[in-house]
């Protein structure tokens, strides 16, 4: 029972950051219909940025986190403008290939700059964990959960309470109609990609602090993000959040009780099983897929 509680707590912390990944991708995927292979690289970028700020330059950890998010947004915007905008209207697989090319370039640039050895980020939190009954949780993880929840709320507020969010939602529903209503579609796309990338960078910075930073960390993150989007439905932020916690839970319990080697397979199995029975995702509204 104690083990179960510990797993649950771990899952909640993990789920929070997974949610950031998932929300970011579901926005990009949903509004722009792009299979974004660079999402994982933005995640890694966030981790390396905070590493650069906090570990290499010795700056404040929290400041580093903010820089990571902002830098992630800027990088996302640049990718959108340089690579995606010129490709509007091209074949789906052509766009995919461009994204794949970008992914390869980004990951190997990271490898070149930082080398393949995993890096650890020193954080300003006390080493001794917080112990509540049978459950122990490090202060870092408490912070990660808090930061993730804050960002999730911020994303929610952005989408549902701002003009930009309204424009994004309109573009998601019907981009032609939105354009006719005066929405600047190109700008929305750039903003969407930037926001999504920023969220991915945030997730990377947070989880990178908890675990380690490696150049290939983005690959699994990408796949998990896609799993979450499928679970939650395209463009559905609430669904993505729930899906993220579900995935984290399945992973934690799977690793704890079944086998840790297959831990990462859980995500993929979920994808395959869900799509077999509900090809539009668990929480999808009645939308046309693909």
């Amino acid at each position, binding site marked *: 029972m104690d083990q179960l509680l510990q797993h649950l707590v771990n899952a909640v912390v993990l789920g929070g950051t997974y949610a950031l990944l998932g929300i970011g991708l579901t926005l990009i995927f949903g509004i722009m219909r792009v299979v974004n292979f660079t999402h994982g690289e933005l995640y890694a970028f966030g981790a390396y940025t905070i590493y650069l700020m906090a570990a290499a330059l010795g700056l404040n950890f929290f400041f580093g986190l903010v820089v990571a998010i902002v830098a992630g947004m800027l990088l996302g915007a640049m990718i959108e403008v340089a690579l995606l905008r010129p490709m509007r209207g091209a074949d789906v697989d052509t766009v995919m290939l461009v994204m794949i090319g*970008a992914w390869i370039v980004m990951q*190997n640039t990271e490898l*070149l700059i930082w080398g393949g050895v995993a890096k650890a980020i020193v954080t300003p939190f006390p080493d001794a964990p917080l112990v509540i009954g049978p459950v122990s949780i490090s202060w870092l993880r408490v912070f990660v959960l808090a930061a993730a929840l804050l960002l999730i709320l911020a994303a929610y507020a952005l989408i549902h309470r701002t003009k930009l969010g309204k424009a994004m939602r309109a573009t998601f529903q019907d981009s032609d109609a939105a354009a006719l209503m005066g929405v600047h579609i190109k700008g929305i796309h750039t903003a969407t990609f930037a926001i999504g990338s920023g969220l991915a960078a945030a997730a990377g910075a947070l989880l990178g602090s908890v675990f380690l930073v490696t150049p290939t960390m983005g690959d699994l993150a990408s*796949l998990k993000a*896609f799993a979450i989007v499928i679970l939650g439905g395209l463009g559905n932020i609430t669904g993505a959040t729930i899906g993220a916690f579900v995935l984290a839970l399945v992973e934690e319990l799977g690793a704890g009780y079944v086998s840790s080697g297959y831990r990462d397979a859980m995500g993929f199995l979920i994808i395959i099983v869900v799509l077999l029975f509900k090809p539009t995702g668990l929480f999808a509204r009645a939308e046309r897929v693909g």
Partner: protein
Amino acid sequence: MKRAVPTFWLLVIFTLPFWLQDQYVLHILITTGIFIIAAMSLNLLLGYTGQLSLGHVAFFGIGAYVSALTTLGFDVELFGGFRVVHEPWPAVAGFFIAITIAGMSGYVIGKLSFKVRGAYFVIVTISFAEVTRLVALNWVELTQGPLALTNIPPFTLGFPGLGNYTLWDKTAYWYLVGVVGLVAYVVIGRLVNSRIGRAMIALKENESLASSVGIDVTHYLVLAAVVSAAIAGGAGSLYAHYIKIIDPDIFLFIYTVTMVIMVITGGKGSLAGPIVGGLIFGFLPVIVRAFAAPAVQWILYGGLTILVVFVLPRGIVPTLQGWIASRTQSESARAGLSWAGGSKSGDAK
């Protein structure tokens, strides 16, 4: 001109070992050749039938593992305590079993693509490949996990009356790859230039329209997937018996990516496209390796991919064909494949 080109290449392929002595280059050619076969099979599914299958390496890897396990033998315990023991069989048997089992997994993917469309299908195929990798990695009893399956025996061909011949050296292997490649090329070529191929292309272009003229879209999609997977599986088997050692890394997404790059830069939907793309991306590493670190190499490939997509969106071969056609003012060539059995471009002005 059209007839001369293939004959020329056939001559090159079959006389190669006589004028190429460098064993290292031959080795590269062999592995590139194997990858080209896999890329051609991907082209059938991705290029001609329009299915965004990004898990193709799964079929290649399944073929490799099945072939290796068939020839090495295995002894595993399944759920419920059943023990399955398999004695080693000859490599040729492994080859054909690999093709069959890979084809069967292609059937599954084909059936799946009907329930799951568009971008979700992409994710499912990627997940499929990842799951196979994780199974290969974790089912150690069967696959030796990360320790790899080693000492895979080479092919032994038995010629009645002439005795057995074991393919140990590279020259023999080159011919084997050449023959299999040729068969694959002919199979795919005949398929796409036929009524079946037209149905596949129709379903890629416009499914509703294809259905409305009586084309059973599911059937042809599954057919494309099965044939595509079977050929990839065959390539995997060739790979296993050549390299003689395979590990779960064979399922890495990066290999699918390599195949996709070969197909799309070479020109999807054209028969020669994967060959050209394959040669470029098969040899580029060799050339670049001399002066750049691995990371830099990959940055170059990534950049090159983006560049080709921006500059030659249809791929190298179709762009070249179009360019040649506009030079020779041949309208039927510009329209793409000419299926007009006996007619020439006399119908056109």
